[in-house]
């Protein structure tokens, strides 16, 4: 059973389009995250949610809008895609607490043409 699953795995689209990435976890965790990994493999936190509520928004452009319909899901919608949005986006989940291990999905590779 996949613990943290993201769809789609690959997303190729034109500049200016709107797209969504979905994430689901079956670990029973309360906390979920979105990270962006650039071409140099640097991972940076974008958002964190706890129990469906936004906790962290790390100066991400408001074209990015996360939405958590329930504790097991955290989706990411991106409006007006730009070339600089090309990256791998990772969803993760954990129990609440800074010492808790985070469980990552396999990533969504977003390519903007």
């Amino acid at each position, binding site marked *: 059973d996949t613990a*943290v699953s993201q769809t789609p795995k690959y997303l190729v689209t034109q500049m200016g389009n709107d797209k969504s990435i979905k994430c689901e976890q079956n670990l029973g965790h309360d906390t979920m995250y979105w990270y962006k990994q650039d071409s140099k493999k640097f991972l940076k936190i974008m958002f964190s949610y706890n129990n469906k509520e936004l906790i962290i928004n790390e100066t991400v452009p408001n074209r990015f809008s996360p939405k958590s319909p329930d504790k097991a899901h955290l989706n990411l919608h991106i409006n007006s895609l730009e070339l600089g949005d090309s990256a791998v986006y990772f969803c993760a989940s954990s129990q609440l607490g800074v010492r808790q*291990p*985070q469980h990552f999905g*396999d990533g969504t590779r977003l390519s903007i043409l």
Partner: protein
Amino acid sequence: TQLLEQSPQFLSIQEGENLTVYCNSSSVFSSLQWYRQEPGEGPVLLVTVVTGGEVKKLKRLTFQFGDARKDSSLHITAAQPGDTGLYLCAGAVDSGGGADGLTFGKGTHLIIQP
């Protein structure tokens, strides 16, 4: 903003050699985690250290958290080709919410040649 300086960025050594990866910061972290990432997959946790001076061992891997909780190291003894991968250190700071997310280093690309 917390920063984690990870070094070296790239390391290619022969099978059987030892190596150390360093992760340094001017900030104090509540915990320091080490992850390993394979191509096309997400990072997978190797270890979490939370106490200053703590040392944890995972087979041939030894992890240490600095006394001041600002730095950490990963030492691999007698490296094997199966150790090849991207190693990431990540620090967590407790702002009270418990859901701050991790601050990652830039990673160490490790290649162990047979």
